[in-house]
C-alpha cells in the first residue's frame, strides 16, 4: 500500500517555467545555507577534537590508554550535540590524532607495535558505533517529541470542535481552530455541500480552484515550494470537502487524524442543520394549522349566529313571521364582527405583504391622540379617559392615518381588557429626539409568560377569550410602528394594569431650541 506521503507526491503541481527558474536559485540558496551550517558544525567538531588533543598532549600529559578513553568521551559529546556527519569526521580525526600523538612512534602516523593497530581499529569502531547510536537515539527522541506535540494539538482541536458555537458556521470555526492549535500560517477549508471556502491564519491562501479540484477528484495536491498541501476530506469514501494549509509539519498519521476530525465536525454541522431545518419546517406547519383553526373559529362564530337566525326565520310559516328585535340585533352585531375581522385581516395582510406605503406628514401628537379618541367615541360611552398630551410637544413625522389605527387598536384593547369603572390614560411626552406616546389601563395586567405572545397574530388573553376581538389588533399596531422604524413596548404586571408605549420621530426642525 502506498504511504500517505507517496500518494501525495504522486500528484505534484507543476510550477510555470519562470517560476521554476526562480525556484532553482532559491533551492541553491537554501542548500548553500544548509551546507555552510554543516561546514561550521564540522569545523566546530574538529576544533573540539584539536582542543582535546592539545589538553591531553600538552597541558595534562596522560598515557595512551587514558588518551584513548578521553577521545571516546569527546566523540560521544560531539555525537550528542551534532549529527552523523560531524561525529564521523570527529571519529576519524580523533583516530588520527590518537595515532600521531600517543601511539609510538609518537609524531608519526606509523605504528610500531602490531597490537596498537588492533587498539586503533577498536577505537575507530567504538567511536563510529557510539556516534551512530547517539545520533539515532537523538532522532528518535525528537520524533517522539514531535508526535507528542501533534497528539496534543489534535486533542486540543478535537476539544475545540466539540465546543463549537452553533450561532456561527461550524466550518468557519473549524478552520479557525486548526490555524490556532496547529499554528499553521494559512489554512483554507472548502465545504462541498455549500460550495463555500473558509480561511484563517495570518497569511492568505488564494487557492480556491485547487481546493475544488482536490475535493472533486479526491486527489492530494502538494506544492513543496510553498510547503502547501491540499488534501481532500473524505467521509465514508466520499469527498465532502478539502483542506489546504501551508507551513505546517504533520506526520501522515496525524494529518489523517486531523482530516477525520474535520470530516466528523463537518458531518455534525450538516446533520445539525438538517435537524434545525426539519424543526423549523415542523413549527411552520404547526403555525399554519393553528392559524387556519383560529381563522375558521373566528369567522365561523359570527356566521353561525347569522345562519342560525336566518334559517330559523326562513323555516317559520309566512304568516307567523314578525319582527324579532333580538334576532335582528344578533345578525347586525355578527355582521359588524365579520366586517371588523375582514378589515383587520386585510390591514394585516397589506402591512405584512409590504404593499402599503407610508404617507408621511408632519403632525402634532395631540392631534393624533384626539383623532383616535374621536374615532372611538361611540365605544367609550361612559368610560373615564384621561388625556395627557400637551399642545406644546414638537410635531412628529408619521403617517397620521396609520398611527391613529395603532392608537385605536390600543384603545380598543384597553376598553376590552380593563373593568369599566377603571380609568384609561392616554398621553405623550418628549424624550430626547422622540415623542413617546403611551396608553395605560388599570386592568388585570399581563403575566410575564404572556407578554411576548400578545403581539402574535390571533393571540388573545388567556382568560379573556369570551371578549369580542379578532386577535389581530396588537399585531397590526406593531407592524405599523415597525414600518415607521419604531417598536412598541409593554410594561405590565398582574394586578397593576398595563402600559403600552411607542416612540415617534420628531419632525426635522421640530425640536425646540
Amino acid at each position, binding site marked *: 500500500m502506498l504511504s500517505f506521503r507517496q500518494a501525495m507526491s504522486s500528484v505534484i503541481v507543476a510550477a510555470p517555467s519562470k517560476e521554476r527558474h526562480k525556484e532553482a536559485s532559491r533551492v541553491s540558496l537554501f542548500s548553500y545555507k544548509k551546507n555552510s551550517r554543516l561546514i561550521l558544525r564540522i569545523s566546530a567538531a574538529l576544533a573540539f577534537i584539536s582542543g582535546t588533543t592539545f589538553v591531553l598532549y600538552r597541558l595534562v600529559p596522560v598515557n595512551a590508554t587514558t588518551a584513548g578513553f578521553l577521545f571516546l568521551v569527546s566523540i560521544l559529546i560531539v555525537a550528542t550535540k551534532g549529527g552523523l556527519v560531524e561525529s564521523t569526521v570527529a571519529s576519524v580525526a580523533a583516530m588520527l590524532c590518537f595515532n600521531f600523538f600517543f601511539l609510538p612512534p609518537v609524531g608519526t602516523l606509523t605504528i610500531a607495535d602490531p597490537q596498537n593497530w588492533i587498539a586503533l581499529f577498536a577505537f575507530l569502531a567504538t567511536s563510529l558505533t557510539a556516534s551512530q547510536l547517539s545520533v539515532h537515539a537523538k532522532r528518535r527522541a525528537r520524533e517522539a517529541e514531535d508526535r507528542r506535540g501533534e497528539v496534543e494539538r489534535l486533542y486540543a482541536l478535537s476539544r475545540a470542535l466539540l465546543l463549537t458555537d452553533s450561532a456561527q458556521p461550524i466550518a468557519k470555526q473549524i478552520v479557525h481552530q486548526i490555524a490556532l492549535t496547529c499554528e499553521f500560517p494559512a489554512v483554507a477549508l472548502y465545504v462541498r455541500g455549500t460550495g463555500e471556502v473558509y480561511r484563517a491564519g495570518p497569511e492568505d491562501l488564494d487557492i480556491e480552484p485547487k481546493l475544488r479540484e482536490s475535493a472533486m477528484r479526491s486527489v492530494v495536491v502538494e506544492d513543496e515550494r510553498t510547503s502547501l498541501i491540499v488534501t481532500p476530506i473524505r467521509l465514508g469514501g466520499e469527498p465532502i470537502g478539502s483542506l489546504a494549509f501551508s507551513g505546517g509539519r504533520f506526520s501522515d498519521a496525524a494529518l489523517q487524524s486531523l482530516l477525520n476530525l474535520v470530516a466528523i465536525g463537518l458531518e455534525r454541522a450538516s446533520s445539525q442543520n438538517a435537524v434545525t431545518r426539519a424543526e423549523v419546517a415542523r413549527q411552520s406547519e404547526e403555525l399554519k394549522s393553528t392559524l387556519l*383553526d383560529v381563522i*375558521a*373559529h373566528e369567522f*365561523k*362564530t*359570527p*356566521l*353561525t*349566529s*347569522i*345562519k*342560525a*337566525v336566518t*334559517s*330559523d326565520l326562513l*323555516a317559520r310559516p309566512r304568516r307567523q313571521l314578525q319582527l*324579532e328585535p*333580538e*334576532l335582528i340585533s*344578533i345578525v347586525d*352585531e*355578527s355582521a359588524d*364582527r365579520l366586517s371588523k375581522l375582514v378589515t383587520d385581516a386585510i390591514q394585516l395582510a397589506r402591512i405584512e405583504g409590504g404593499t402599503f406605503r407610508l404617507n408621511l406628514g408632519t403632525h402634532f401628537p395631540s392631534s393624533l391622540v384626539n383623532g383616535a379618541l374621536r374615532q372611538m367615541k361611540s365605544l367609550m360611552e361612559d368610560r373615564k379617559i384621561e388625556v395627557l398630551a400637551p399642545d406644546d410637544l414638537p410635531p412628529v413625522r408619521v403617517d397620521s392615518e396609520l398611527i391613529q389605527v395603532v392608537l385605536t387598536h390600543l384603545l380598543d384593547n384597553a376598553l376590552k381588557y380593563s373593568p369599566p369603572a377603571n380609568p384609561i390614560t392616554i398621553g405623550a411626552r418628549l424624550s430626547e429626539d422622540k415623542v413617546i406616546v403611551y396608553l395605560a389601563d388599570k386592568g388585570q395586567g399581563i403575566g410575564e409568560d404572556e407578554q411576548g405572545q400578545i403581539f402574535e397574530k390571533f393571540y388573545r388573553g*388567556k*382568560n379573556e*377569550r*369570551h371578549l*369580542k376581538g379578532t386577535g389581530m389588533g396588537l399585531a397590526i399596531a406593531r407592524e405599523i410602528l415597525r414600518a415607521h422604524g419604531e417598536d412598541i413596548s409593554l410594561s405590565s404586571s398582574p394586578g397593576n394594569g398595563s402600559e403600552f408605549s411607542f416612540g415617534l420621530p420628531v419632525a426635522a426642525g421640530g425640536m425646540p431650541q
Partner: protein
Amino acid sequence: MSAGRVLVIDDDPQIRRVMRSTLTSHGYQINDARSGEEGLQELRNSTYDLVLLDMNMPGMGGMEACRMIRSSSEVAIIMLTVNNSERQMVDALDAGADDYITKPFSTPELLARIRATLRRLPQLPGQSDLQPLAAQGVNIELSSREVTVNGRTSRLTAREFGLLTYFLARPNKTIAHRELLQAVWGPDYGSELEYLRVFVNRLRKKIEPDPSKPLFLVTDAWAGYRFHLPQ
C-alpha cells in the same frame, strides 16, 4: 309544556344568545354556561335533557368536558364544532357525544338533531317481551339498562340502549347500516356510517367480554351488523 331542558355550553356570548333566542322560541327551556367547568357545575345542580357543547373552548375544552359529563351522566350530548373532519367527528362520538353538528348550521337542522336525540325510542315490536339476556358471563338487564360482564357493571346511554334493543329483537339476522341508522337515530339519518361504527364499538366495550373479539355484536362485512345469540 317544555319540549326539554337544554344546557348550552359555549365560550362565545353571541352563540349563547342565539341559542337562547331560537331554542326558547321553539319551546325549549334554556340555560347556558361559559366553560366546560361551569357546565359541569351546572349539570350537578340541575337536571337537563340535553347538552349543546362547543368543542373549541378555553380551559378544559369541549372534548374533555364531554368525557367528564359522560362519566357521571347519561344526558344527551350534541357537540358543536367548526371542524367537519371525520377524525374529529369520531373523536367526539368516542368521547361520549350522541351527535355532532358543524358550525355554521341552520336552526331547523339543529332542531331536527335535538328532536332525534331526545326522541323517546319507539316501542320496538316485542320489546316488552324481551327477556333479560344471560349468556357466557354476560347479563343484560333491560329494565334498568344495566349490563354486567364478568361481574363488571356498566350502564347504557339511551342511544346505546336503543341500538341494543333493536338488535335483541332481531337476533341472528344481519341488519343493514341504513336500517339501523333510521330506526335508532331517525328518518333523517342513513349515511352516517361513522356513527354506527362508534356506537357499535361503545356497545362492544360494555357488553363483550373481549371487545376486540366480539361474541355477540358481529360485523357482516359490507352488509351490516348481526347480533349473534347462542342458541
